[in-house]
């Protein structure tokens, strides 16, 4: 298409020149094609010139090839001053393959998730306080990736730490109607998950995943979610 347009724009004498142009150097084209295809790296004009018979108009052939391949699934492109074949940009989607992997949560992630579920809205510092160990950023990132937890807001305390809570996906995945379905102390004991000898002071909170923020929560400012620094400072 473009070549047609170009032709129309050409002054007359040029168009005549085209007519007398020698036949396409197919042999040369084929050689350049093969060399570029088989090479493990892009080739420069000089490297190509060295490999084809003397007198071959390598640049001319490259430009011809570039036109020939422009509309195809593979294009001839010049990168860093060297030439190579590359699959067409619009077909990049073909070059990806999605692999779905079943993955298990680490124990740290499971514990953190459980604490968020029971104690929500809860800050990272509070999670650490309950777990007795510091929580790596990675653990929360993994949990956010599961879409089972979300950042709810900011606690109205010094440092304004982010509060975490569970999501609708959490309920869907674990087949609960609401987080209030999470078993309490007696049920956990009954299921044999808690030792019956736990101290009297041992409390299992009643979780609350209400969309509405609690009284001591402020809304998250838009954008601040993705600023690691802001988050770090808030957590410290």
């Amino acid at each position, binding site marked *: 298409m473009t070549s047609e347009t170009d032709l129309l724009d050409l002054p007359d004498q040029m168009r005549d020149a085209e007519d007398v142009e020698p036949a396409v150097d197919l042999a040369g084209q084929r050689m350049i094609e093969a060399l570029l295809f088989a090479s493990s790296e892009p080739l420069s004009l000089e490297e190509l010139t060295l490999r084809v018979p003397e007198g071959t108009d390598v640049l001319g052939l490259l430009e011809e090839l570039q036109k020939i391949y422009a509309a195809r699934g593979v294009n001839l492109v010049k990168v860093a001053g060297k030439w190579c074949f590359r699959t067409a940009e619009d077909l990049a989607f073909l070059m990806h393959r*999605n692999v779905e992997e079943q993955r298990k949560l680490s124990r740290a992630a499971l514990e953190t998730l459980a604490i968020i579920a029971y104690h929500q809205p809860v800050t990272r510092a509070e999670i650490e306080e309950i777990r007795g160990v510091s929580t790596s950023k990675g653990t929360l990132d993994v949990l956010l990736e599961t879409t089972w937890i979300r950042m709810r807001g900011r606690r109205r305390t010094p440092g304004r730490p982010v509060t975490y809570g569970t999501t609708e996906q959490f309920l869907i995945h674990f087949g609960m109607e609401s987080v209030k379905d999470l078993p309490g102390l007696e049920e956990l004991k009954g299921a044999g998950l808690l030792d019956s000898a736990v101290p009297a002071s041992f409390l299992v909170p009643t979780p609350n995943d209400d969309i509405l923020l609690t009284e001591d929560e402020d809304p998250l400012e838009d954008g601040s979610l993705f600023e690691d620094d802001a988050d770090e400072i808030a957590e410290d």
Partner: protein
Amino acid sequence: MAELNEHTQASNDGSFDLLSSAGRDEERAVSDPLLVVDVEGFEGPLDLLLGLARTQKVDLARISILELVEQYLEFVAAARLMRLELAADYLVMAAWLAFLKSKLLLPEQKDEDEPTGEELAAALAFRLRRLEAMRDVSEKLMSRSRAGRDVFHRGAPETMSVRHKSIWDASVYDLLSAYATQRQRQSVTSVRVLRRTVWSLQEAREILTRLVGRVSEWAPLNSYLRDYLYDEKEWATIVASTFTASLEMVREGQVEIRQGEPFSPVYIRSIVKDADHDV
């Protein structure tokens, strides 16, 4: 395996020429009388037979097996004459060929079980043809356009990028047991961390000795301890230790204690050693 290059005086006729490696043929034609017996170039007796057969310059299908057998036996005889050691393979073949020769020369025996000389000869011819055929096709195979030598596959393949999408999995049970285990672990740990201050008997005794020494009036034991009561939590250990210590001091005759009734205050006083102080 077999003996390699052996340079020996040629015995007589030219029948050994075919034993030499082809490359040296011409040289020797001029510079005779050196004979080169080169078994190294042969891959075993069958290959040697094939080499001998080729010199008959006829189609292997119409080869004279008898003539071939003669040539082979001559080769072996010559090698022995030159005291060359031939590998066992070659000698076994020689023995078998000698047997075949006798079969071929003798009038046919009517024996149903044993193959005739012709049949054995045909079998040998078949094996030679088959080996030659394999040799031919191996050459044909290697002369094909071969990938990485004549034709080339993609030099810079665009590797497929794999996008991993994780599907997270956890059951309610995983969740609850993680929670319960974790909470329980924390509560147990905190109990262990709490350390109680305990008054040793020795400490209690030292303190009592110093205190009671000053007073000879009956006084409630607890009042002596008031100064040392830093902490309510330590009360039990203080009382227990001092009481035990006081009993010991009573036994030693240093103090007296009395109590009006169960659970009432315990009184204590030092024993005055002076005779003029009445009890």
